[in-house]
């Protein structure tokens, strides 16, 4: 890696903390972003010359703040501040600032920055786009590619989202004991949505990079809230799901179900990190939806072969999730585990009451058809598979269902000769 690549990585890593602190100082998102941008430009000239500072974030905050104030003063014909190459040599100038930044300030700065992106008036996709732009520092072009829209359209969306936030007013006060977990939950939901945008797109597509970015943000959040079991759960959930990325699609882009995946292709490093986080979270004995979903993903990750899966445990975990966060989709997922433990009749009975609420949901008909097929009710299975195809979200989903239909046709055809 060149020095420049290292500097870029350091700037990316310092970005949330630096912009968060500048936002606290200037109370204006655009000013904070511009100040950070200016500091980055100066870093690109100062750091290769003087070597990287000991605390990149503190350097960027100090230089960014001075640059913005300098601009204000120049406009107001006041005296300019000393140039940054003088400042950058003063290690002691950084130290007290870094000191003040440590601890709760820093935590709340980053949380505030993420929370502002999650303004409830913004639709979820705009929240994600804004977070990727402001917190992650992705270019508008990168974000546009991830959302499969044009660059101009994305630029406009982000500008509009920012304007809306400016109108709505920004929550600058330090969050109280009650607000902090609320903010954290909103931010966690946004990060998981970003992850799912990438996850549903499949490996190799530019959207898949959203998964990496969501995991990076979750690790960042976890660094700040080390003892929060739900943030551990969220991070673990994404790590364990992302670990399967290389095994989820075949060469033609077709979906490979969990049971049929080559588990040798699963990423052992991500699984190790995910399992460690699940273990850590469980010690707190404060279960939450992310933790339970992570525990389900962990059950699959621990099974060397599909037949080693502890389906009774998966079933029990889904039952716990149903109690905590009742939803027809959770029940549908639980039914798959119930089918393994109690058989297809019990599973079918479990999902029949969901028909009205899931009448537009692809997976409902796919799962229902699979249960019917296992019960030997081929004609009904065929109808359900057809309904699934009509609701498929991607060509890969439709192709996967067609495989089942072909199999029914083959099995029902009269034996040749």
């Amino acid at each position, binding site marked *: *890696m060149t*020095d420049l*690549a*290292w500097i870029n*990585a*350091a700037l*990316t*890593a*310092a970005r949330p903390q630096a912009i968060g602190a500048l936002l606290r100082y200037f109370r204006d998102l655009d000013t904070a972003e511009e100040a950070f941008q200016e500091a980055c430009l100066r870093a690109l000239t100062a750091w290769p010359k003087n070597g*990287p500072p*000991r*605390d*990149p974030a503190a350097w960027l905050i100090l230089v960014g703040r001075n640059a913005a104030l300098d601009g204000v003063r120049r406009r107001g014909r006041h005296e300019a501040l000393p140039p940054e190459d003088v400042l950058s040599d003063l290690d002691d100038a950084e130290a007290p600032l870094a000191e003040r930044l*440590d601890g709760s300030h820093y935590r709340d700065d980053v949380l505030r920055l993420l929370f502002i992106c999650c303004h409830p008036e913004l639709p979820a996709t705009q929240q994600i786009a804004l977070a990727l732009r402001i917190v992650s520092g992705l270019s508008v072009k990168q974000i546009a590619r991830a959302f499969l829209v044009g660059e101009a359209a994305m630029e406009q969306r982000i500008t509009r989202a920012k304007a809306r936030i400016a109108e709505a007013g920004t929550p600058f006060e330090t969050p109280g004991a009650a607000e902090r977990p609320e903010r954290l939950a909103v931010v966690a939901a946004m990060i998981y949505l970003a992850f799912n945008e990438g996850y549903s797109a499949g490996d190799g597509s530019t959207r898949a990079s959203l998964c*990496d970015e969501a995991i*990076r943000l979750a*690790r*960042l959040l*976890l*660094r700040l809230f*080390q*003892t929060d079991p739900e943030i*551990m759960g969220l*991070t673990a959930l994404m790590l364990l799901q992302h670990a399967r990325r290389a095994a989820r699609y075949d060469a033609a882009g077709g979906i490979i179900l969990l049971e049929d995946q080559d588990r040798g292709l699963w990423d052992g*490093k991500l699984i*190790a*990190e995910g399992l*460690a*986080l699940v273990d*850590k979270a469980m*010690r707190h004995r404060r279960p939450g939806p992310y933790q339970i979903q992570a525990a389900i993903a962990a059950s699959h990750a621990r099974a060397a072969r599909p037949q080693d899966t502890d389906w009774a445990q998966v079933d029990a975990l889904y039952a716990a999730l149903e109690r905590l966060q009742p939803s027809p989709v959770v029940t549908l997922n639980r039914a798959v585990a119930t089918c393994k433990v109690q058989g297809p009749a019990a599973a079918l009975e479990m999902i029949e009451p969901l028909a009205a609420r899931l009448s537009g949901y692809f997976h409902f008909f796919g799962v229902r058809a699979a249960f019917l097929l296992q019960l030997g009710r081929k004609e009904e299975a065929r109808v359900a598979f057809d309904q699934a195809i009509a609701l498929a979200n991607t060509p890969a989903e439709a192709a996967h269902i067609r495989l089942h239909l072909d199999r029914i046709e083959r099995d029902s055809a009269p034996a040749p000769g």
Partner: protein
Amino acid sequence: MLYAILCYNDEDTVWSWSKEEDAAVMARLGVVQDRLTRAGKLGPSLRLLPTTAATTLRKTQEPPLVIDGPFAETKEQLLGFYLIDVADLDEALDVARELGAANPGGSYELRPVARFNPDRRSAADA
């Protein structure tokens, strides 16, 4: 003489490397490691997962306290280590410099090893 080379770096920066950058660093480190292996100087080495996955057992009270996260909050974190067998500190520093040239940022702490117990798991299994 056995030295442990303890690798410290800012993990936020290291985990912000792109996959390509990470792979390039690992490839360059691999070249150095191969040379050390051929010279019979490289012992076990490992890379650690992020400190967010760490748990600390603090023995400041009884029973000891289990804490989420690393032992100490520092600007740079322990990310891995090498064990090397070298003649003296000068040679250990040469190795560290070579590894350092392949790996941007951070610091290496060179610590002489007092006692080394090799991995005995496979022996116990047999």
